[in-house]
Each structure stands twice: as C-alpha cells, then as structure tokens.
C-alpha cells in the first residue's frame, strides 16, 4: 500500500465524519432539499469528466468523457437549480411568498 492511498483514506474517513457531524440534526422540512443539494454536490465527478473529455487521447476517450460530462452537468446544474426552486417555496408564517 503506497503512502498516497493512505493519505486518501485519511481524507475520506475524516470527510465522512465531518459530514456526519455537520448534518446530524436535519429538520424534516429540509430532508428533500438537503438530499437534492447533496446530490448536486455528488456531481463533483464533473471535474474528472472535464479532464477526460479534453485530454485529446482519441475519439473513444472524448466520447466517454463527454457522456460523463453531460451526465455530471445535468446533475450539477439541475440539482442546484431544483434545490433553489424548492427552498424558495419554504416560508415561515407571515412571510410573503
């Protein structure tokens, strides 16, 4: 096992703990927006897709990269927008909608 992978495992485990600590008590009102917002964040694979689509190593890689990029972009753009749309609807008592 190389040193890099150990560091990666550290990062992963600590990030999981951070996630659990940061999110723990979510009011049910926000279950759906939290899920769709988190889902948009999982579109971070877009970073990998960008490199593959642009590295110019032949048609196969351009196609795989571009399909990945389309999927990730739908996930990111759609996810953040729909979350915002939902959150715009949530209002406290007495607030104008």
């Amino acid at each position, binding site marked *: *096992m190389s040193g*890099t992978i150990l560091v*990666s495992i550290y*990062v*992963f485990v600590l*990030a*999981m703990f*951070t*996630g659990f600590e*940061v*999110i723990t008590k979510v*009011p*049910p*009102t*926000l279950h*759906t*927006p939290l*899920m*769709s*917002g*988190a*889902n*948009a*964040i*999982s579109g*971070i*694979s*877009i*970073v*990998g897709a*960008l*490199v593959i*689509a*642009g*590295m110019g*190593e032949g048609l196969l*890689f351009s196609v*795989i*990269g571009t399909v*990945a*990029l*389309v999927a990730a*972009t*739908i*996930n990111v*753009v*759609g996810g*953040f*927008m*729909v979350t*915002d*749309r*939902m*959150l715009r*609807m*949530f*209002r406290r*008592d007495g*607030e104008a*909608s």
Partner: protein
Amino acid sequence: MGTNELIIQLAYLLSAILFIVGLKRLSSPATARRGNRLAAIAMLIAIVVTLLDESILTFEWIIAGMVIGALIGATMARLVKMTDMPQMVAVFNGFGGLASGLVAAAEFLRFQIGGAPAPSLDAAIAIMAGTLIGAVTFSGSLIAFGKLQGIVTERPVTYPMQQVVNGLIFVAILAAMTLIVVGPASGPGSGVAPELVYYGLWAGALVLGILLVIPIGGADMPVVVSLLNSYSGLAASAAGFALNNNVLIISGALVGASGLILTRIMCKAMNRSLANVIFGAFGQAPSSDAASGEKRTKADVNSVQAEDVAMLLAYATRVVIVPGYGLAVAQAQHKLRELADHLEARGVQVRYAIHPVAGRMPGHMNVLLAEANVPYTQLYEIEDVNPDIQSVDACLVVGANDTVNPAARDDPASVIAGMPIVEADRAKHCVILKRSLSPGFAGIDNELFYARNSMMYFGDAADSIAKIVEEVKQL
C-alpha cells in the same frame, strides 16, 4: 508541484471548505438557500480551475458536453412539477452515478488500450469500486425513477431464489474485479482480454442495480432514494481515489454521509432495519391475515358526507391534518391549504403532523405543502403532536394509512409493530378521507377506520376537500 498545479490544489481545498459550509447551512431552514448557493459557487470554482489543468488540450468536446448538460439540467429543474420531485431526485442520482462510473472507466481504458502507465494496485481497486458503485447507482436509480413515475410496477417484483441470484451476480462481479486487478488476465496470452472482462463487469453491475431495486415496494422508496443518494456520493469518492483527487474524495464522502443519515432516519421511522427494507420485499401482497379475518365493509364504518366534516372542522378549536402519499396522488395540496385558510379565518388552530416516511422520498410532504404555500412553521413532527393529541378536536387524515394505524402501537404481532405513528385514534374525532377501505402498503387492515370516534368520507381527496370547503363557506 508547478504553480499551476498549486493553484488548482488550493482552489480545490477552497471548494471542499465551501461544500462543507454549504451543507451545514442546508440543514437549517433560515440559511438553507444561501447554503445551496454556496455549494453551487464551490462547484463553479472547482470547474473553472480544472480547466487550467495542463492535460486538457482541446475544448470542443468540453463545451459541447457542458452546454448540452446545462440545457437539459436547467430545463428539467424548471419544468418539473413538485409532485414529481421524487422521480426527479432519483434521476439526478442516477446521472451522478453514471458520471462517476464513466470517469472510472476512462481511467481504466487509458492504460488498458490507451498506453498510459498501468495504475497502481490501489488505483486499480478504486477504479473497480467506482465502476461498481457508479453503475449500480445508475441502473438502480433508473428503476427507482420508473417505479415512481409509474412505468415500472410499484409492487415488489419477486421470484424464487432472488437473493441467491443476486448473490451469484455479486460474486461474479467480485471475481471479475479480482481477475482484472491482480489476475493473469493482464499478462499477454492469458486468453480473455481484460477490457472484455471489464465490459462484463459493467454489464453485471448494471443488472445488479436493477435487481436490487425491483423487489422494493413503493412506500419503501424514501429509503431507496436516500440510499442511492448516498451511493452517488460514494461513487464520486471512489472516482476520487482512482484519480487521486481530494476534492472528489471529500465531496463524495460528505454526500455519502448525508445520504446515510437520511437512510437511517427513514428506517427508524418505520422501525425496520436497512436489510429488511432492501431484502424484505415488504408489501408484496395483501397479507393473508387481513384476508382470512372477518371481511369488513363500508357498512361497518361511520361513513359521512362533506356537510358533517365541515361542521366538525369549522366548530373545532384545534385541528391536526395528517397528510400521506394519497395527498400527492390526488394533487390536493392546494385545496387542502384553502380549507386550512378558511378554518383559520374562523379562529381554528390548524397544524400538520408529518410522518417522516409519508410519501415517496424524505421530506415529500413538506415540499408538497410548501408548494401550496403552507408555512413550514405549521408542520410538526409526530413526537411534537402525539403528547397532547387527546386535546385535538379533529384529526383530518388525507391519503395516509399505515402511518396512522394504531396496530403499530397496540399489536406486537403486527407487521408494522413498533413503527412510530401519528396517534390519530386518540384525538377526540378523526376524519379519514380515502377512496375505499383497501389496506395500505403494509397490506393490513386499519382499526382506526372502524373506531367509534372515526368518520370516513369516501372519495377522491381533491374532490372531497373541495366539497368540504364549499360547506365550510356556508356555515
């Protein structure tokens, strides 16, 4: 590390920090919208700095992919109806999984047929994990979408030896992965080309995703959707391990954690283990004891008309509304809000009791009622409503069934024993809007319908509520 690389890494660190802060804010109503924007900004930063990467040589494909993806994503996000939100979330999860799986695939094929140096053992394992989780998330999410959209049956699909078949496929996938990572298949003259084994791995993982989700019934979808949400994060993390990219690992882990938290909340709300939800094929058929017991009909219940319900509600002091999936199906949320408005104008205190698993995804009822402009301050968790529910004059149950079934509390032998419920039976009166006496998802009879203080108003929820509103106006 060159200057360029340094800038990229520091910007990724900034993104990761903003994702964490954004998620933190997403878990509180007052700051949620800003939190979501912050996360979007973090994503934008990550995308922009990635474009500085020196290995990116051409931009045609990138521009095409991003434009197409952004157009599709934005159109879907703008047009989707709030009632269709569960399938929307499922589909987005699927795209996230697909993207991560494909990133892993490209990483594998680069060395296999692209001539890049072979990945280290760790990276190869990460590639396999990313492929498996990504593909399972993709096909599983599509089936979940199909079920929620009504394209695939909502009933659990079961067949003999189901777990054995799934188990065998999983073992075959593990074998293929091992073969690719360490096996002789990577040497010359070993017979099967590793990329063929890899394509087989994809096929197996896609099939596994389908088979894992088809036996799960409609009302268990909140668990499935949250679990797939978690998977989409873990797939991104695995891709991050393969690319040795920390921002992927961190963001993926955050999403994985948030999905797991939601999954746990949903399981607790049904008093069932995750294994039972995934493998239990719950709600498969109307259970036999419901059929064998004395068959009760509409003659056994106190069936009422709009006028009676209107009288009860209008002259009540405290009303609690219990919405369920039937409210979403009937699209009656706006009518319900109108009724609540009329009641409040008469001085009635109206509250909503939201069961965590009501509907088809976590928070489904909250989104539905928010769309109808119900302030979230009127929505209460069941543990806030139950303690003094005996002082509630009328409990109005709209399209809910198992979540108000007193058997969960009273009958230790019931299939839903121990599941937290809204104790509607303890309110002074209970009005149930429902099409028929048919059992809910759990397939069992509901004693609440036959209780002395219960009234059943049969019909489509939207029509029924509209009639009640008309009657209330005339009082």
